[in-house]
Protein backbone atom coordinates (compact mmCIF):
# COMPACT_ATOMS: atom_id res chain seq x y z
CA UNK A 1 0.00 0.00 0.00
CA UNK A 2 1.73 3.13 -1.21
CA UNK A 3 -0.99 5.74 -0.68
CA UNK A 4 -2.60 6.57 2.64
CA UNK A 5 -5.34 4.31 3.96
CA UNK A 6 -8.90 5.47 3.39
CA UNK A 7 -11.17 6.54 6.22
CA UNK A 8 -13.41 3.51 5.56
CA UNK A 9 -10.46 1.15 5.80
CA UNK A 10 -9.29 2.58 9.10
CA UNK A 11 -12.77 2.62 10.57
CA UNK A 12 -13.57 -0.91 9.39
CA UNK A 13 -10.22 -2.07 10.75
CA UNK A 14 -11.32 -0.95 14.22
CA UNK A 15 -14.45 -3.06 13.83
CA UNK A 16 -12.53 -6.09 12.55
CA UNK A 17 -14.58 -5.81 9.37
CA UNK A 18 -11.68 -6.04 6.92
CA UNK A 19 -10.88 -9.20 5.01
CA UNK A 20 -7.71 -10.95 6.19
CA UNK A 21 -5.62 -9.84 3.22
CA UNK A 22 -6.77 -6.22 3.39
CA UNK A 23 -6.12 -6.19 7.12
CA UNK A 24 -2.58 -7.52 6.66
CA UNK A 25 -1.87 -4.91 3.99
CA UNK A 26 -3.20 -2.15 6.19
CA UNK A 27 -1.17 -3.30 9.19
CA UNK A 28 1.93 -3.32 7.03
CA UNK A 29 1.18 0.21 5.89
CA UNK A 30 0.41 1.45 9.40
CA UNK A 31 3.76 0.25 10.69
CA UNK A 32 5.51 2.73 8.41
CA UNK A 33 2.99 5.59 8.19
CA UNK A 34 2.64 7.91 11.20
CA UNK A 35 -0.06 9.95 9.42
CA UNK A 36 -2.41 6.96 9.14
CA UNK A 37 -1.56 5.84 12.66
CA UNK A 38 -2.60 9.27 13.95
CA UNK A 39 -5.87 9.12 12.02
CA UNK A 40 -6.50 5.64 13.33
CA UNK A 41 -5.83 6.77 16.90
CA UNK A 42 -8.26 9.66 16.41
CA UNK A 43 -11.02 7.31 15.31
CA UNK A 44 -10.16 4.86 18.07
CA UNK A 45 -10.53 7.66 20.61
CA UNK A 46 -14.02 8.49 19.32
CA UNK A 47 -15.11 4.87 19.44
CA UNK A 48 -13.73 4.45 22.96
CA UNK A 49 -15.62 7.51 24.17
CA UNK A 50 -18.87 6.31 22.64
CA UNK A 51 -18.42 2.85 24.09
CA UNK A 52 -17.77 4.34 27.52
CA UNK A 53 -21.12 6.11 27.44
CA UNK A 54 -23.31 4.47 30.01
CA UNK A 55 -26.77 3.41 29.03
CA UNK A 56 -29.11 5.74 30.86
CA UNK A 57 -32.12 4.50 32.73
CA UNK A 58 -35.41 5.62 31.20
CA UNK A 59 -37.70 7.81 33.34
CA UNK A 60 -39.51 5.74 35.94
CA UNK A 61 -42.95 6.62 34.67
CA UNK A 62 -42.18 5.76 31.05
CA UNK A 63 -43.66 2.27 31.25
CA UNK A 64 -46.85 3.71 32.73
CA UNK A 65 -47.09 6.32 29.97
CA UNK A 66 -46.65 3.66 27.29
CA UNK A 67 -49.25 1.48 29.00
CA UNK A 68 -51.70 4.40 29.02
CA UNK A 69 -51.20 5.16 25.35
CA UNK A 70 -51.66 1.51 24.46
CA UNK A 71 -54.81 1.46 26.61
CA UNK A 72 -56.17 4.52 24.80
CA UNK A 73 -55.47 2.76 21.52
CA UNK A 74 -57.16 -0.47 22.51
CA UNK A 75 -59.44 0.34 25.42
CA UNK A 76 -62.11 2.42 23.70
CA UNK A 77 -65.51 0.71 23.64
CA UNK A 78 -66.12 -0.63 20.18
CA UNK A 79 -68.44 1.40 17.96
CA UNK A 80 -71.01 -1.41 17.89
CA UNK A 81 -71.17 -1.53 21.69
CA UNK A 82 -71.55 2.22 21.97
CA UNK A 83 -74.29 2.27 19.32
CA UNK A 84 -76.15 -0.52 21.07
CA UNK A 85 -76.07 1.38 24.37
CA UNK A 86 -77.32 4.56 22.71
CA UNK A 87 -80.20 2.75 21.00
CA UNK A 88 -81.22 1.18 24.32
CA UNK A 89 -81.32 4.61 25.97
CA UNK A 90 -83.62 6.02 23.30
CA UNK A 91 -85.92 3.01 23.19
CA UNK A 92 -86.34 2.84 26.96
CA UNK A 93 -87.53 6.50 27.05
CA UNK A 94 -90.51 6.91 24.63
CA UNK A 95 -90.29 10.71 24.75
CA UNK A 96 -86.93 10.49 23.00
CA UNK A 97 -88.12 8.27 20.16
CA UNK A 98 -88.67 11.11 17.59
CA UNK A 99 -85.16 12.38 18.32
CA UNK A 100 -83.90 8.85 17.82
CA UNK A 101 -85.59 8.76 14.39
CA UNK A 102 -83.90 11.99 13.42
CA UNK A 103 -80.52 10.71 14.57
CA UNK A 104 -80.96 7.52 12.57
CA UNK A 105 -81.87 9.52 9.45
CA UNK A 106 -78.81 11.72 9.86
CA UNK A 107 -76.63 8.68 10.44
CA UNK A 108 -77.99 7.14 7.24
CA UNK A 109 -77.14 10.27 5.24
CA UNK A 110 -73.65 10.30 6.73
CA UNK A 111 -73.20 6.62 5.94
CA UNK A 112 -74.21 7.10 2.31
CA UNK A 113 -71.84 10.05 2.05
CA UNK A 114 -68.93 8.09 3.49
CA UNK A 115 -69.77 5.17 1.19
CA UNK A 116 -69.29 7.53 -1.74
CA UNK A 117 -65.95 8.67 -0.33
CA UNK A 118 -64.85 5.07 0.18
CA UNK A 119 -65.73 4.26 -3.42
CA UNK A 120 -63.65 7.18 -4.52
CA UNK A 121 -60.73 5.98 -2.38
CA UNK A 122 -60.94 2.54 -3.93
CA UNK A 123 -60.29 4.11 -7.30
CA UNK A 124 -57.24 5.91 -5.94
CA UNK A 125 -56.42 8.34 -3.20
CA UNK A 126 -57.02 11.93 -4.16
CA UNK A 127 -54.74 14.17 -2.31
CA UNK A 128 -53.84 17.73 -2.94
CA UNK A 129 -50.11 17.80 -2.34
CA UNK A 130 -48.71 21.25 -1.74
CA UNK A 131 -45.78 22.10 -3.96
CA UNK A 132 -42.58 22.38 -1.94
CA UNK A 133 -41.80 25.93 -0.90
CA UNK A 134 -38.65 27.05 -2.74
CA UNK A 135 -36.88 28.30 0.37
CA UNK A 136 -37.26 25.07 2.33
CA UNK A 137 -36.78 22.36 -0.25
CA UNK A 138 -34.94 19.31 0.96
CA UNK A 139 -33.87 17.12 -1.91
CA UNK A 140 -32.41 13.64 -1.98
CA UNK A 141 -31.30 11.66 -4.97
CA UNK A 142 -31.57 7.90 -4.81
CA UNK A 143 -30.81 5.59 -7.72
CA UNK A 144 -30.65 8.67 -9.95
CA UNK A 145 -34.21 9.70 -8.99
CA UNK A 146 -34.73 13.00 -7.23
CA UNK A 147 -37.13 13.43 -4.32
CA UNK A 148 -38.23 16.66 -2.68
CA UNK A 149 -39.69 16.81 0.80
CA UNK A 150 -43.07 18.51 0.96
CA UNK A 151 -44.43 18.68 4.49
CA UNK A 152 -43.85 15.10 5.56
CA UNK A 153 -44.14 13.55 2.13
CA UNK A 154 -41.27 12.85 -0.24
CA UNK A 155 -42.34 13.46 -3.84
CA UNK A 156 -40.41 12.19 -6.82
CA UNK A 157 -39.48 14.89 -9.30
CA UNK A 158 -42.17 15.07 -11.98
CA UNK A 159 -45.01 13.79 -9.78
CA UNK A 160 -45.70 17.06 -7.94
CA UNK A 161 -48.97 17.68 -9.78
CA UNK A 162 -50.29 14.13 -9.68
CA UNK A 163 -53.47 14.05 -7.64
CA UNK A 164 -54.51 10.42 -7.94
CA UNK A 165 -52.48 7.39 -6.98
CA UNK A 166 -52.73 4.11 -5.16
CA UNK A 167 -51.47 3.74 -1.61
CA UNK A 168 -49.05 0.92 -0.82
CA UNK A 169 -48.96 0.52 2.94
CA UNK A 170 -45.57 -1.02 3.74
CA UNK A 171 -45.36 0.50 7.19
CA UNK A 172 -45.08 -2.82 8.96
CA UNK A 173 -43.62 -4.85 6.13
CA UNK A 174 -40.60 -6.93 7.05
CA UNK A 175 -39.51 -7.27 3.45
CA UNK A 176 -40.09 -4.84 0.63
CA UNK A 177 -40.37 -5.28 -3.13
CA UNK A 178 -36.80 -5.14 -4.48
CA UNK A 179 -37.49 -2.12 -6.65
CA UNK A 180 -38.80 -0.13 -3.68
CA UNK A 181 -36.10 -1.21 -1.23
CA UNK A 182 -33.65 1.67 -2.00
CA UNK A 183 -36.33 4.27 -1.32
CA UNK A 184 -37.31 2.88 2.10
CA UNK A 185 -34.51 4.91 3.65
CA UNK A 186 -36.62 8.03 3.03
CA UNK A 187 -39.12 6.67 5.54
CA UNK A 188 -42.75 7.70 5.92
CA UNK A 189 -44.83 8.54 2.85
CA UNK A 190 -43.17 8.67 -0.54
CA UNK A 191 -44.90 9.41 -3.83
CA UNK A 192 -42.99 7.74 -6.62
CA UNK A 193 -43.35 5.82 -9.84
CA UNK A 194 -43.70 2.11 -9.23
CA UNK A 195 -44.39 -0.39 -12.00
CA UNK A 196 -45.06 2.45 -14.39
CA UNK A 197 -47.66 4.29 -12.32
CA UNK A 198 -47.58 6.83 -9.50
CA UNK A 199 -48.10 5.35 -6.05
CA UNK A 200 -47.79 6.58 -2.50
CA UNK A 201 -45.64 4.10 -0.61
CA UNK A 202 -45.90 4.25 3.17
CA UNK A 203 -42.59 3.05 4.57
CA UNK A 204 -41.96 2.22 8.23
Amino acid at each position, binding site marked *: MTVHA*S*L*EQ*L*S*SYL*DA*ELARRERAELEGHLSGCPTCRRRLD*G*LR*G*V*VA*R*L*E*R*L*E*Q*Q*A*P*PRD*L*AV*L*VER*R*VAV*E*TGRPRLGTRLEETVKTFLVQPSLTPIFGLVVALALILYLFSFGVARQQERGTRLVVPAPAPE*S*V*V*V*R*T*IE*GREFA*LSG*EIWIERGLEKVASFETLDL*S*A*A*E*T*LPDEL*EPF*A*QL*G*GRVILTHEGRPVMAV*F*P
Partner: protein
Amino acid sequence: MSTVPVAMPRPVTELDLIERHRLGDPQAFEEIYRQHEKMVFNLALRMSGDREDAAELTQEVFLRVYRYLDRFRGRSSLKTWVFRIAVNCCRSRFRRRRLRFLEPGPDSEQTLERVVDPRSDPEREALNRSLGERLSAALAQVPLPFREAVVLRDVQGFSYDEIADILRIRSGTVRSRIARGRERLRRAMEGEQ
Protein backbone atom coordinates in the same frame (compact mmCIF):
# COMPACT_ATOMS: atom_id res chain seq x y z
CA MET B 1 -24.87 -45.47 34.80
CA SER B 2 -27.21 -44.74 31.99
CA THR B 3 -28.18 -41.20 31.24
CA VAL B 4 -31.85 -40.47 31.12
CA PRO B 5 -32.81 -37.71 28.74
CA VAL B 6 -34.40 -34.90 30.67
CA ALA B 7 -36.85 -32.61 28.96
CA MET B 8 -35.43 -29.12 29.25
CA PRO B 9 -37.84 -26.22 29.24
CA ARG B 10 -37.76 -24.61 25.82
CA PRO B 11 -36.54 -21.00 25.96
CA VAL B 12 -39.20 -18.44 25.22
CA THR B 13 -38.58 -17.25 21.70
CA GLU B 14 -39.61 -14.02 20.08
CA LEU B 15 -42.19 -15.86 18.03
CA ASP B 16 -43.66 -17.37 21.20
CA LEU B 17 -44.09 -13.89 22.60
CA ILE B 18 -45.69 -12.62 19.43
CA GLU B 19 -48.03 -15.58 19.28
CA ARG B 20 -49.07 -14.94 22.88
CA HIS B 21 -49.66 -11.31 21.98
CA ARG B 22 -51.87 -12.37 19.06
CA LEU B 23 -53.83 -14.57 21.42
CA GLY B 24 -54.47 -11.57 23.66
CA ASP B 25 -51.93 -12.13 26.43
CA PRO B 26 -51.05 -8.59 27.64
CA GLN B 27 -47.95 -9.89 29.42
CA ALA B 28 -46.36 -10.75 26.09
CA PHE B 29 -46.20 -7.10 25.06
CA GLU B 30 -44.97 -6.16 28.52
CA GLU B 31 -42.16 -8.66 28.11
CA ILE B 32 -41.23 -7.24 24.70
CA TYR B 33 -41.35 -3.76 26.20
CA ARG B 34 -39.08 -4.74 29.10
CA GLN B 35 -36.57 -6.36 26.74
CA HIS B 36 -36.22 -3.31 24.50
CA GLU B 37 -37.20 -0.27 26.56
CA LYS B 38 -33.74 0.75 27.73
CA MET B 39 -32.07 0.29 24.35
CA VAL B 40 -34.78 2.17 22.49
CA PHE B 41 -34.73 4.99 25.03
CA ASN B 42 -30.95 5.29 24.74
CA LEU B 43 -31.07 5.27 20.95
CA ALA B 44 -33.64 8.08 21.06
CA LEU B 45 -31.56 9.91 23.64
CA ARG B 46 -28.39 9.77 21.56
CA MET B 47 -30.28 10.75 18.43
CA SER B 48 -32.17 13.66 20.00
CA GLY B 49 -29.82 14.66 22.82
CA ASP B 50 -32.77 15.36 25.10
CA ARG B 51 -34.31 13.09 27.75
CA GLU B 52 -37.79 14.50 27.35
CA ASP B 53 -37.73 14.02 23.59
CA ALA B 54 -36.29 10.56 24.08
CA ALA B 55 -39.11 9.61 26.44
CA GLU B 56 -41.74 10.85 23.98
CA LEU B 57 -40.04 9.05 21.11
CA THR B 58 -39.91 5.84 23.12
CA GLN B 59 -43.65 6.07 23.70
CA GLU B 60 -44.27 6.55 19.99
CA VAL B 61 -42.03 3.61 19.14
CA PHE B 62 -43.81 1.19 21.45
CA LEU B 63 -47.22 2.39 20.39
CA ARG B 64 -46.26 1.52 16.82
CA VAL B 65 -44.73 -1.77 17.92
CA TYR B 66 -48.02 -2.63 19.64
CA ARG B 67 -50.02 -1.55 16.59
CA TYR B 68 -48.03 -3.60 14.09
CA LEU B 69 -46.85 -6.55 16.15
CA ASP B 70 -49.56 -8.74 14.67
CA ARG B 71 -47.96 -8.34 11.26
CA PHE B 72 -44.44 -9.32 12.38
CA ARG B 73 -43.54 -12.66 10.80
CA GLY B 74 -40.03 -13.16 12.13
CA ARG B 75 -38.11 -12.68 8.90
CA SER B 76 -35.78 -10.36 10.74
CA SER B 77 -35.09 -10.40 14.47
CA LEU B 78 -37.61 -8.63 16.66
CA LYS B 79 -34.84 -6.37 17.93
CA THR B 80 -33.94 -5.29 14.39
CA TRP B 81 -37.61 -4.66 13.63
CA VAL B 82 -38.13 -2.61 16.79
CA PHE B 83 -35.02 -0.55 16.04
CA ARG B 84 -36.15 0.05 12.47
CA ILE B 85 -39.34 1.52 13.87
CA ALA B 86 -37.31 3.53 16.40
CA VAL B 87 -35.03 5.01 13.73
CA ASN B 88 -38.02 5.96 11.61
CA CYS B 89 -39.80 7.55 14.56
CA CYS B 90 -36.68 9.65 15.18
CA ARG B 91 -36.57 10.69 11.50
CA SER B 92 -40.25 11.63 11.51
CA ARG B 93 -39.78 13.66 14.67
CA PHE B 94 -36.89 15.57 13.14
CA ARG B 95 -38.85 16.22 9.98
CA ARG B 96 -41.81 17.54 11.92
CA ARG B 97 -39.54 19.99 13.66
CA ARG B 98 -38.04 21.11 10.37
CA LEU B 99 -34.55 21.17 11.84
CA ARG B 100 -32.77 20.38 8.66
CA PHE B 101 -30.89 22.00 5.86
CA LEU B 102 -29.20 20.94 2.70
CA GLU B 103 -25.66 19.72 2.74
CA PRO B 104 -23.70 18.35 -0.19
CA GLY B 105 -23.30 14.58 -0.03
CA PRO B 106 -19.69 13.81 0.77
CA ASP B 107 -19.52 10.22 -0.36
CA SER B 108 -22.24 9.55 -2.84
CA GLU B 109 -24.66 11.08 -5.23
CA GLN B 110 -27.10 11.50 -2.41
CA THR B 111 -27.81 14.78 -0.76
CA LEU B 112 -27.93 14.11 2.93
CA GLU B 113 -30.16 15.78 5.40
CA ARG B 114 -28.43 17.37 8.29
CA VAL B 115 -30.34 17.80 11.49
CA VAL B 116 -29.17 20.17 14.15
CA ASP B 117 -30.60 21.15 17.46
CA PRO B 118 -30.75 24.95 17.50
CA ARG B 119 -30.99 24.93 21.27
CA SER B 120 -27.50 23.52 21.59
CA ASP B 121 -24.51 25.77 21.46
CA PRO B 122 -21.64 23.32 21.79
CA GLU B 123 -18.78 25.79 21.42
CA ARG B 124 -19.85 27.86 24.40
CA GLU B 125 -21.37 25.31 26.70
CA ALA B 126 -19.23 22.24 26.30
CA LEU B 127 -16.21 23.09 28.42
CA ASN B 128 -17.43 21.88 31.77
CA ARG B 129 -19.78 19.16 30.72
CA SER B 130 -19.58 15.50 31.50
CA LEU B 131 -18.46 13.12 28.78
CA GLY B 132 -22.05 12.23 27.97
CA GLU B 133 -23.17 15.79 27.57
CA ARG B 134 -20.16 16.72 25.46
CA LEU B 135 -20.70 13.73 23.25
CA SER B 136 -24.38 14.56 22.85
CA ALA B 137 -23.49 18.08 21.81
CA ALA B 138 -20.94 16.78 19.33
CA LEU B 139 -23.35 14.16 18.00
CA ALA B 140 -25.89 16.91 17.28
CA GLN B 141 -23.41 18.29 14.75
CA VAL B 142 -23.15 15.02 12.85
CA PRO B 143 -25.54 14.71 9.87
CA LEU B 144 -28.45 12.43 10.68
CA PRO B 145 -27.62 9.48 8.37
CA PHE B 146 -24.07 9.31 9.77
CA ARG B 147 -25.29 9.77 13.33
CA GLU B 148 -27.76 6.90 12.99
CA ALA B 149 -25.02 4.56 11.79
CA VAL B 150 -22.53 5.59 14.49
CA VAL B 151 -25.05 5.36 17.32
CA LEU B 152 -26.28 1.95 16.17
CA ARG B 153 -22.69 0.68 15.92
CA ASP B 154 -20.79 2.30 18.78
CA VAL B 155 -23.52 2.91 21.34
CA GLN B 156 -25.90 0.03 20.62
CA GLY B 157 -23.31 -2.47 19.40
CA PHE B 158 -25.08 -3.68 16.25
CA SER B 159 -23.09 -5.46 13.54
CA TYR B 160 -22.71 -3.95 10.07
CA ASP B 161 -25.22 -6.45 8.68
CA GLU B 162 -27.77 -5.66 11.37
CA ILE B 163 -27.37 -1.93 10.72
CA ALA B 164 -27.84 -2.53 6.99
CA ASP B 165 -31.06 -4.36 7.86
CA ILE B 166 -32.32 -1.67 10.24
CA LEU B 167 -31.55 1.23 7.91
CA ARG B 168 -32.35 -0.73 4.74
CA ILE B 169 -29.10 0.23 3.08
CA ARG B 170 -26.23 -1.77 1.63
CA SER B 171 -23.35 -2.97 3.83
CA GLY B 172 -20.92 -0.82 1.86
CA THR B 173 -23.00 2.24 2.68
CA VAL B 174 -23.05 1.25 6.35
CA ARG B 175 -19.27 1.06 6.35
CA SER B 176 -19.00 4.46 4.70
CA ARG B 177 -21.52 6.14 6.99
CA ILE B 178 -19.92 4.77 10.15
CA ALA B 179 -16.49 5.96 9.00
CA ARG B 180 -17.70 9.42 8.09
CA GLY B 181 -19.82 9.72 11.18
CA ARG B 182 -16.86 8.89 13.41
CA GLU B 183 -14.67 11.36 11.57
CA ARG B 184 -17.31 14.12 11.86
CA LEU B 185 -17.68 13.34 15.53
CA ARG B 186 -13.92 13.45 16.06
CA ARG B 187 -13.76 16.85 14.40
CA ALA B 188 -16.75 18.12 16.38
CA MET B 189 -15.14 17.01 19.63
CA GLU B 190 -11.81 18.53 18.69
CA GLY B 191 -13.57 21.76 17.85
CA GLU B 192 -15.02 22.07 21.31
CA GLN B 193 -11.70 21.67 23.11
